[in-house]
């Protein structure tokens, strides 16, 4: 894998950009749209909460692996197979170190969704029974709701929700009250909400759950790529995240777990590579992390994600967070200029990841997204896979703008200009 040079990043530049970053992403050289009335526009990408764009080092690492080092892993004795092994396990070590976790408890999955399902099926079915409760929150993504619904229905357990208040925050007192009921086996919650942007008080929540004897799972899909996360130091029982939201390829996610739990848990998927030995009627399981990686794993994707986290590390996660925090503060300030626009979630960028979900009086969020798309601005509209939260907010849908390392103030300005122009189209 090509080494990534330390980046020369200028703090506090007037454009709000991380200097030199945008040109690392080939997609920003493309032009989009264009018609008789509109010239082609560059990509103004404000949808990184859905998936991030990929830097050249990731694209190159993927291509280089497939071109020069491709073989199946964990089996071959020839030189090429050893290269593939080294690339795959090297990527795992790099990814584990990036997240502050140990290599043996860093399991590759397809995405965050599969990581959560792994826990629900493997740990959940062995540890949650009739009368037990699983506690989640009203701000969860469907990926951290539906697996628990299915588990609770199957096991005769109860699924309960922590409320989200008017500011888009959870209450630690409410968490205490829930835990005091004595039946909570697992507390599962988002590190950062994909709709509200809320950064949850993860350390405090984990401490309370631990003190009450409940296990914990954190959905880190919106946190890992945007701020420094030290999984070991957090001491959650499970921490799940996705590669494609962290500048890496699709098709790879990560589950970090507590070693003692992973050792006890039965496998999730079974088949090749996850076994120690197979007899006609039974099998024994491979050691961690392989016990949870049935079949040929996403080798090239792991190599790509390894390059992505190396790129992020070279930028420095503290800088990434500072960049996104100041840009989000600017976005909140500029969005307030649009008449009839209401942002949901915490008022302060300090309490938010790099995103803002909003509604505009008189224009449905889908139309908002369509109107700004004409100016080349990419945002998302809909329920963001969080329909229960939409119900709590009393809206059917919201529009959402989210930032990444490559965005700057000009992207936010383009969004606000497009929103103002969109209101005129609607005669507002």
């Amino acid at each position, binding site marked *: 894998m090509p080494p990534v040079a330390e980046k020369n990043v200028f703090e506090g530049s007037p454009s709000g950009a991380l200097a030199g970053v945008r040109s690392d992403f080939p997609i920003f050289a493309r032009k989009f749209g264009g018609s008789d009335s509109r010239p082609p526009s560059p990509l103004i990408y404000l949808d990184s909460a859905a998936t991030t764009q990929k830097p050249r080092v990731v694209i190159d690492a993927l291509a280089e692996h497939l071109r020069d080092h491709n073989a199946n892993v964990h089996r071959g004795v020839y030189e090429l197979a050893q290269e593939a092994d080294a690339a795959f396990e090297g990527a795992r070590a790099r990814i584990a170190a990036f997240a502050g976790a140990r290599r043996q408890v860093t399991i590759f999955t397809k995405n965050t969704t599969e990581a959560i399902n792994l826990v629900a099926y493997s740990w959940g079915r062995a540890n949650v029974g009739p009368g037990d409760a699983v506690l989640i929150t009203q701000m969860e993504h469907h990926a951290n709701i539906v697996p628990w619904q299915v588990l609770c229905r199957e096991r005769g357990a109860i699924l309960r929700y922590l409320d989200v208040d008017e500011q888009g925050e959870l209450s630690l007192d409410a968490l205490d009250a829930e835990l005091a009921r004595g039946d909570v086996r697992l507390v599962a919650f988002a590190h950062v909400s994909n709709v509200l942007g809320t950064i949850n008080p993860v350390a405090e929540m984990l401490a309370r759950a631990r003190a009450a004897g409940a296990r914990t799972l954190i959905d880190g899909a919106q946190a890992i790529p945007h701020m420094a996360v030290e999984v070991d130091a957090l001491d959650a029982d499970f921490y799940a995240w996705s590669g494609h939201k962290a500048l890496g390829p699709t098709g790879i996610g990560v589950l970090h777990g507590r070693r003692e739990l992973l050792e006890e848990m039965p496998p999730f998927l079974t088949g090749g590579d996850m076994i120690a030995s197979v007899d006609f009627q039974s099998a024994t399981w491979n050691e961690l992390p392989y016990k949870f990686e049935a079949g040929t794993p996403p080798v090239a994707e792991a190599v790509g994600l390894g390059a992505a986290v190396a790129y992020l590390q070279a930028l420095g996660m503290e800088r990434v967070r500072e960049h996104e925090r100041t840009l989000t503060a600017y976005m909140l300030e500029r969005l307030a200029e649009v008449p009839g626009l209401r942002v949901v979630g915490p008022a302060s960028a300090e309490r938010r990841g790099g995103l803002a979900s909003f509604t505009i009086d008189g*224009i*449905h*969020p*889908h*139309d908002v997204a*369509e*109107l700004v798309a004409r100016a080349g601005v990419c945002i998302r*509209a*809909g*329920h963001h896979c969080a*329909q229960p939260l*939409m119900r709590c907010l009393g809206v*059917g*849908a919201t529009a959402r703008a989210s930032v990444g390392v490559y965005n700057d103030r000009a992207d936010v300005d383009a969004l606000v200009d497009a929103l103002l122009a969109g209101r005129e*189209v*609607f*005669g507002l």
Partner: protein
Amino acid sequence: MDDLYRDYILDHYKHPRNFGELEPHDLEALEHNPLCGDELAVQIRVQDGRIEDLRFQGHGCAISQAAASIASEELKGMALAEVGELGADWMIELLGIPVSATRRKCALLNLKVVRGAVTGDHAWPA
């Protein structure tokens, strides 16, 4: 002039025809657009095998609301057998704007709910 958000589309969006409740009614149905969570319900009164009157209820984008409003005016008086035969092209032509692939379900939600109420077929119109 805007290709998509033409004056008549915005007029139907802001002042949808045949929206509200219909009592008494003979048929009703409710459908969702899983893409965006929008929902649309319809209540239909039938006389002599025809739609005598109908009302939509729900929320959605300009395309889905305008499509329902415009369709409602055409559907009044239509034979139920004819409603069952209506396809996606009917709705798209009636709407008269270029509907992109991602907005197609917005435009077709009303036809899906009406066909569901009349025929029990809950598939997306083809």
